[in-house]
């Protein structure tokens, strides 16, 4: 009975072409890159007389060996597809960009780290007492939208001829300018090449607008001098 079964299997196998390939020297494989290198010497006579046929035959043999290697890898099935887990590529290839250097900590980050202050996440919606409803903390229809502040209460002693709305706008600009200045200063301190020129002596003024950047002074100049620009 066994003999019959073997004969049947042999007959069946003979129907199909073999997947075996004989090579003098084993191929070198980098399956992670689907790469195979054949070190066997080429048949130069065949190269001259029937090049394309020979190259096709050679390619078929080498590809067969590579496919054999790929099919030996561990298989898993997902989404009706048969997937094979590729090993890490072994060919050493250069990167396209240098390895990134870890960014330095900003002044606040170093302080927070030393003190052990952790960043707590604030919720998007805040309950607004005056309107008795939930409003977003920032963005469209936010809680402290300047559009809603049509009135500013000033004490009796305050100057009645001063434009308080303008003053508020100026203060906002100062805040932004100060924040931008600090941000640039952090970069110049932590990143290499951020500070290029020798620092110039800073003119100290009691004027708050010292943080405001002149329209002619660009961000780069700010970095290069390493000091707040003169207003």
């Amino acid at each position, binding site marked *: 009975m066994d003999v019959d079964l073997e004969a049947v299997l042999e007959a069946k196998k003979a129907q199909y072409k073999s997947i075996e390939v004989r090579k003098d020297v084993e191929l070198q494989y980098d399956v992670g890159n689907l790469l195979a290198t054949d070190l066997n010497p080429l048949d130069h006579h065949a190269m001259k007389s029937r090049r394309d046929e020979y190259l096709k035959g050679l390619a078929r043999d080498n590809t067969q060996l590579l496919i054999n290697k790929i099919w030996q890898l561990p298989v898993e099935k997902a989404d009706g597809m*048969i997937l094979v887990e590729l090993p890490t590529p072994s*060919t050493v290839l250069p*990167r396209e960009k240098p390895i990134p250097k870890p960014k330095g900590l900003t002044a606040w980050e170093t302080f927070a780290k030393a003190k052990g202050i952790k960043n707590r996440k604030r919720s998007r919606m805040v309950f607004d007492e005056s309107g008795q409803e939930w409003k977003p903390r920032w963005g469209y229809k936010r809680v402290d939208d300047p559009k809603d502040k049509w009135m500013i209460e000033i004490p009796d002693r305050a100057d009645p001829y001063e434009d308080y709305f303008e003053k508020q706008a100026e203060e906002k600009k100062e805040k932004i300018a100060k924040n931008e200045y600090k941000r640039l200063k952090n970069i110049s301190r932590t990143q290499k090449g951020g500070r290029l020129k020798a620092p110039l002596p800073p003119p100290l003024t009691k004027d708050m607008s010292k943080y405001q950047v002149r329209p002619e002074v660009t961000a780069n100049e700010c970095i290069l001098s390493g000091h707040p620009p003169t207003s």
Partner: protein
Amino acid sequence: MDMQNQGIVKPKTQRAKRALETKAPKLVENTKSALFIRGGHTSETVTQALKDLSVFKKPEAVVLRRKNILRPFEDATSVEFLGQKSDCSLFVFGSHSKKRPHNLVIGRMYDFHVLDMVELGIENFTSLSSFKSGSCALGSKPCLVFAGDQFETEVEFIRLKNIFIDFFRGQELKKLALDGVDHVITFTAAEGRVYFRVFQVILKKSGCKTPRVELEEMGPRLDLVMRRSHLSSDSLLKQACKKPAAVKPKKVKNVSRDSFGSKLGRVHMKRQDFTQLQTRKMKGLKRTKPHSSTRNKDGPHTTKRAKLDSTASS
């Protein structure tokens, strides 16, 4: 220049921010993109060759439509500039002149400075469109086959092989769909020439799990001859190949596998005083004081004498 401006020029939209992030240096990099540039004068062969090669690089290919009068070997800065603008670290520059007919310069960059450049001349060219049969899916990962011992013995060819792998390998995949193995690119080196052939892979039944491979040529067919080359120094290449420490797989200490495959571990202990070990208490093994019921009071050597003996002796 760009590195310096990082953070100084803050992007105003999320889209711009994402664009900057994709272009920034990373620990695990993006798939390398290739730039296809046409020179001042090009021949039909060269333009068609560039088009056909770009098919194998898509979607990581940028094909420039206009002609660029550049000389990569004389002045690489223009190519570097183009690469930086389009965020491509690989390039192929095609040109045609009487001195160098049907010329292709294939190169790669590190930090947008040319690393390696190899000039190849196209001796025979058959376009993709000439091959009626055979096709492959766009963007599928190719199998790469290198033949010919020149790829292992000659310096220029060794580097060229590395460039070809870098260029054609595509995305680095962890998992591969077995249906996706649909084409193979073969490079055969003989007598200073590289024969570039592309075949569609047809998998046929073989009676066992692994299929029988049949190939159908799908083109393009290029016979390339090595001309000039501008290869980087070994030290620069070594620097470029450095892997970041964070990506390296962490070595697990004190764990090994024996020849049978069983996992063995090593445990390091302090010196122990075996006389003072704390073990489980077993009452039966406890050392007790000498008891009268089991032992003779006279000593260990005296034996019990039977009463009969004493009466018989007298």
